[in-house]
């Protein structure tokens, strides 16, 4: 397999060119935004919870970024729909990385994890729970939270 094909797998290109869950949810139950200071990529994620206040009924994302960050976030929205918020808030990152299934250098890893990090911030913020240690370090590197722009 060529270097191109092993990174830009067909499924990655499909999600990149036809992102699922692209959009905004007005009056979302949980939402957050984040950016990758390295490249300026931005992702905002919106979650609508079911009547039980736990089930993820709908999840949408907006923003701009490279194929890896956009495809990973698109795949993430498919993965989490219908699952419980607390389960996703504590979901290990490897679950997403296995789904993405491509070799990632440390720099591209940040692209791939931007969406998941923002989703976790949104869910923890909505539930008032602290971000797990595994993500706290990444949260420092990626700029999660309200936009710093004046």
């Amino acid at each position, binding site marked *: 397999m060529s*270097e*191109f094909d092993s*990174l*830009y797998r067909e499924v990655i*290109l499909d999600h*990149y060119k036809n992102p699922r869950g692209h959009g905004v949810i007005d009056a979302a139950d949980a939402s957050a935004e984040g950016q990758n200071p*390295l*490249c*300026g*990529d*931005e992702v905002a994620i919106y979650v609508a919870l079911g009547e039980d206040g736990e089930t993820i009924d709908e999840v949408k994302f907006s923003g*701009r*970024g*490279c*194929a*890896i960050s*956009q495809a990973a976030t698109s795949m993430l929205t498919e993965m989490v729909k219908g699952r419980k918020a607390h389960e996703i808030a504590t979901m290990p990152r490897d679950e997403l990385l296995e789904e993405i299934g491509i070799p990632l250098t440390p720099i*591209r890893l940040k*692209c791939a994890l931007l969406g998941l990090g923002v989703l976790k911030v949104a869910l923890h913020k909505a539930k008032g729970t602290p971000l797990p240690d595994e993500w706290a370090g990444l949260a420092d590197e990626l700029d999660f939270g309200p936009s710093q722009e004046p």
Partner: protein
Amino acid sequence: MAVTPQAKLDAPRIRADFPIFEQVIHGKPLAFLDSAVTAQKPHQVLDAVRDFYETSYANVHRGVYTLSERATEAYEGARTKVAAFVNAPSSREIVFTRSATEGINLVAYAWGLWNLRPGDVVLVTELEHHSNFVPWQFVAGKTGATFRMIPVDDAGELDLSDLDAFAREGNLRVVAANLVSNSLGTINPIERLATWAHDQGALMVVDAAQAAPHRRIDVQTLGADFLAFSSHKLCGPTSVGALWGRRELLEEMEPFNLGGHMIRKVAYEGTTWGDVPGKFEAGTQPSAEAVGFGAAIDYLDGVGMEAIEQHEHELAAYALERLGELPWVTLYGPPADRRAGIVSFNVEGIHPHDVSQVLDWEGIAIRAGHHCCQPLMRKLGVAATNRASFYLYTLPDEVDRLIEGLHKVKEKLG
């Protein structure tokens, strides 16, 4: 140095001086089109650093023994070369720093924090690298001075049509601008800005990090008060740079870093400062790096700065022409005759990270990102751009490879 000045430089011959090009990347010859971020090193520089460590290394300005004297002589010799490189009136006006960034911070802290106050205006430009933007924003915030920014126009050039409006906002004290924009390659009219700044009683601080490698700099004709640049962008080692400042300003300033070497007399009751430039060179200095910096200047002088400027100009014009043929490429910045060897662009619908990733597999290194110019990126309405940048070892053939690579990017990801 054995290289003799010539009217037109011989890039293939120059390239042979750079060991890094002896390798292949992903099975292809390395096309290093990211020289604006840092330049590769010729063996003449590497040899000078190695020779210094092997024959002359000791701490400078410390011992009375032979090695220390040799080291000091080499270090001060490098200072003389740096001074001549920018036509400084005296080598005592050259302060060795860690980088251009540190040089600007030195001015912002050691001059700005002590001299700015509410009612003063600090003026930067929208084209600045963060290194000549953030320190001024910070010291203005600390001192209560007003922080303002000269806008860029759609061509990526400074809009100087209403400069006096900035002066009317208060007491203009500092104008800080780069001579060459690192992200668009724009060559800024520093002489004109400096004249205007001086008419207002303000200081002109020039970030020459991107200009010094590419064109002859003369601090006296520019009309600058401070000018900072680094070694690594002009084929020298990392971790050393230079700040030139007018002597009377350097003399009246407080120190920046405090510690060894920068003192005249230390007592429990108080400490007095040494003379410039030592006053600003506390601690063990990057002496081997400074020696390499001097060797890089010798190397560039041997090739000829005019020949380098001409070579880069031709490459930029060629790249703009070839990229201009691609309807799916958006170009940023001024026409070729008003820019250095830097070309920023975007490929329609494809993020710069992905462009750069696919080009890497072709052995082509370009920059993808915001180039430490987020205010400018906001103005351009993009998060990031691709940037190809050229230097004395760049071949026109590498521009052709870039174009072929972009066709591949478009075909695979478009």
